[in-house]
């Protein structure tokens, strides 16, 4: 029924199949394991740079801060220094809270009109919770993956892994029963939360009619892509025993520009190639998609400027002279009438 997500789903499936057949039937392990990853990383870095520079190249002509609290005015009126910052530091705090806690999203309400004709607003925190769960688990997963690119693995990453799996054991112990976790070496909570959060974000996109109405294929595509990545990742870790040693040989090789020989590449499982290829697609897709909100959030002029344009002049680099109606022109038109009315004039006729 909804072409938007069918199309995105099919695209992700096709991409997965590409990697599968490419490596199993056509023996393109070198392409999928080395060339594509390098190309995508380069593309990713330059793409992001290009995008960020593109934004930075456009000036900020006016200080259009959205003020969400009391301004700084009289000394005895308490300013809301976070939501209506007037200094650089205050603005930085506002930005940090925005980026780290999604503060604006936290305000979210849902409005409704009751049968008796009352407009109501209820605090709608689930999008905020889901968004935080998604982004933080994704962050943890990314940081954990750094173990594949470092040797020895830095202490911080090991620590993170430790805590990540710690949570999980308690959780499973309560919910599923102790027998299950015995065979599972360090089940990571982050992967599970990531998948659950993506499913939540996906289902709200499909189930809430308004959100469905505004959604584009470009909104479903990253969700399916991430589902694919998280799904293959979880599958590799807990269901198909992949050869971690060889994988690390490849990833370290990529990181140190010293690619292992063909036998190692050929020995890797096709699930791994699918996983890797979808990650590459994500990297390549990132700079040209809405995922660039990661950069945009830093550059949003309604958030990253203090509301102090009355105290300090903000400069517009392209400010240009405009045609105005001068006082002299005005007086020329109305002089007679002004004199008659006893209004002072510059020139007596």
């Amino acid at each position: 029924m909804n072409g938007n997500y069918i199309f995105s789903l099919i695209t992700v499936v096709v991409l997965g199949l590409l990697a599968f057949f490419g490596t199993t039937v056509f023996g393109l392990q070198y392409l999928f394991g080395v060339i594509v990853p390098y190309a995508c990383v380069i593309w990713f870095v330059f793409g992001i740079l290009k995008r960020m520079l593109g934004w930075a190249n456009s000036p900020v002509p006016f200080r259009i801060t959205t003020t969400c609290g009391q301004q700084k005015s009289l000394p005895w009126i308490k300013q809301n220094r976070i939501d209506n910052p007037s200094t650089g530091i205050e603005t930085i705090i506002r930005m940090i809270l925005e980026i780290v806690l999604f503060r604006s999203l936290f305000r979210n309400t849902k409005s409704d009109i009751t049968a008796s004709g009352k407009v109501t607003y209820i605090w709608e925190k689930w999008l905020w919770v889901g968004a935080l769960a998604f982004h933080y688990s994704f962050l943890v997963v990314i940081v954990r993956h750094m173990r594949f690119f470092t040797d020895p693995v830095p202490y911080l990453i090991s620590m993170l892994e430790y805590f990540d799996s710690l949570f999980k054991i308690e959780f499973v112990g309560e919910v599923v029963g102790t027998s299950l976790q015995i065979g599972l070496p360090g089940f990571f909570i982050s992967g599970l939360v990531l998948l659950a959060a993506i499913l939540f974000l996906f289902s709200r996109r499909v189930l809430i009619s308004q959100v469905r109405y505004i959604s584009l294929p470009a909104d479903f595509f990253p969700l399916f892509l991430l589902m694919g990545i998280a799904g293959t990742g979880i599958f590799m870790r807990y269901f198909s025993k992949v050869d971690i040693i060889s994988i690390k040989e490849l990833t370290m090789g990529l990181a140190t520009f010293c690619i292992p020989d063909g036998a190692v590449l050929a020995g890797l499982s096709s699930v791994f190639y699918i996983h890797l290829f979808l990650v590459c697609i994500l990297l390549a897709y990132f700079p040209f998609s809405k995922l660039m909100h990661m950069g945009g959030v830093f550059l949003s002029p309604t958030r990253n400027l203090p509301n102090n344009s009355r105290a300090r002049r903000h400069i517009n680099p392209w400010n240009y002279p405009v045609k105005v109606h001068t006082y002299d022109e005005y007086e020329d038109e109305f002089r007679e009438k002004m004199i008659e009315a006893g209004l002072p004039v510059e020139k007596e006729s």
Partner: protein
Amino acid sequence: MVDVPKPEELIKVDNKPPAKGWMDVPPDISAGKYPYPAQPKSLKYLDLPNPRDWSPLDDDWQLPENWKEIVHEGLKERLDKYRSLKVFMDTCVRCGACADKCHFYIGSGDPKNMPVLRAELLRSIYRNDFTAAGKIMSLFPGGKRLAGARTLTKDIIKEWFSYFYQCSECRRCSVFCPYGIDTAEITMMGRELLNLLGINIHWIKDPVSNCFRTGNHLGIQPQNFKEIVEFFCEDIEEITGVTINPSFNRKGAEILFITPSGDAFADPGTYTFMGYLLLFEHIGLDYTFSTYASEGGNFGLFTSAEMMKRLNSKMYAEASRLGVKWILGGECGHMWRVINQYMDTMNGPADFLEMPVSPITGTKFENAASTKMVHIAEFTADLIRHNKLKLDPSRNDHLVVTYHDSCNPARAMGLFEEPRYVINNVCNNFYEMPESTIKENTFCCGSGSGLNTEEIMETRLQGGLPRANAVKHVHDKNGVNMLSCVCAIDRAVFPPLMDYWVPGVDVTGVHELVGNALVMEGEIERTTNLRFEPLGDTEGDSDE
């Protein structure tokens, strides 16, 4: 009032999205659904493109030959000039957090009134013309659709006209967007692009051309402006026995006072104007009015940055010509967006003025150190704080007051506590509306940004629904019978909105309340308020 459905009907908002995708749903441009177009004479007076007689009902809007190129180049130019536009075009994730924050969406249920879709109307063109993704996808059949891109057509121009004039540039959406995407900014750009094609509305362009010529939106000529103010003084004398002789265009005054001309023209704004006159007399302020800069508001803001600058220039020019020390500004909404966020940048630096200092209390308004313009609520709050006003709040005892935060002073300035402090000192019965409808969450009157025109009354009533509904809440619960505000558009549009949704609630400016409470030196015993309504009549006139 034009024909509108009954409130019981209008409240039944159907917010189920249509079966067809939004790109396939044409806008409803029928009688009552569109603002009248600008007349050629105002465009000609302002040297604006494509003056002609046309109607949105026409099939052919008589666009310039190369209209497509004009829009493309216009958009390109604006992307290069405004980081806001570029970032807002690129970062939206369509999370929908902004969707039900717009009063026009809540009141109409029309999905294109969700800020995110309003923005997509322009974003889809941006994708097509300026993004790699859009261009690549266009190579495949059906690819444009999938990329959320579309080729600009004349029908899309009509759609823009419809929906960029159903946004009151209130910025409520930007409070809730996780990236601060401000759909008002997008609407402003959209309106600029339409203006390049000569698509403008009468209710904005007529005031703009008036303001350019006579110094105010209403086209009041200098001698009439003086007469009107003198007429207010006569009323004041009759009510209070105090004679006031304000000055006009007086060189050497300490302060230039500028307020929206709407308050010189129509009730209940006029009473607010009288409140200013009483206040300044009470404290013996050395101030003057200007007939040349006799407009605080700036409908240029609703047209283009350039037009805003052209109109706003008069404030500093006049302050400089008259040699005043600083400027005091009256109660107005969008005027304060212009002053707080644009004026100094556009028309400054105002180095011919001095740091504003209250001559009565000595308070330095350091927050206005550069712009040199102070809001009357800041000024009066400071006076009250220093005990410089003799007030009898019991004169407002027949009123049960609530306060509407106007969008611009709220979300483009943060003026929350100053007016509340003033109100609480001049009247005894004050109740706040619910949290989610005040301060930064405030709801627009539904008629801001030049939409306060009669022919789209239904749209305005829909847009005003959330605000009115919150007023109804305190009306039912606390017996509120007076809605106070610091905005001239509010004062003009709330009376019909209240009559429709919450009969029994009247509208006032904050300084009308001040004027009524002020105990003037040498005044006679007051028997009526500034509206000539008998004092002590606990019913007020509104609770008929």
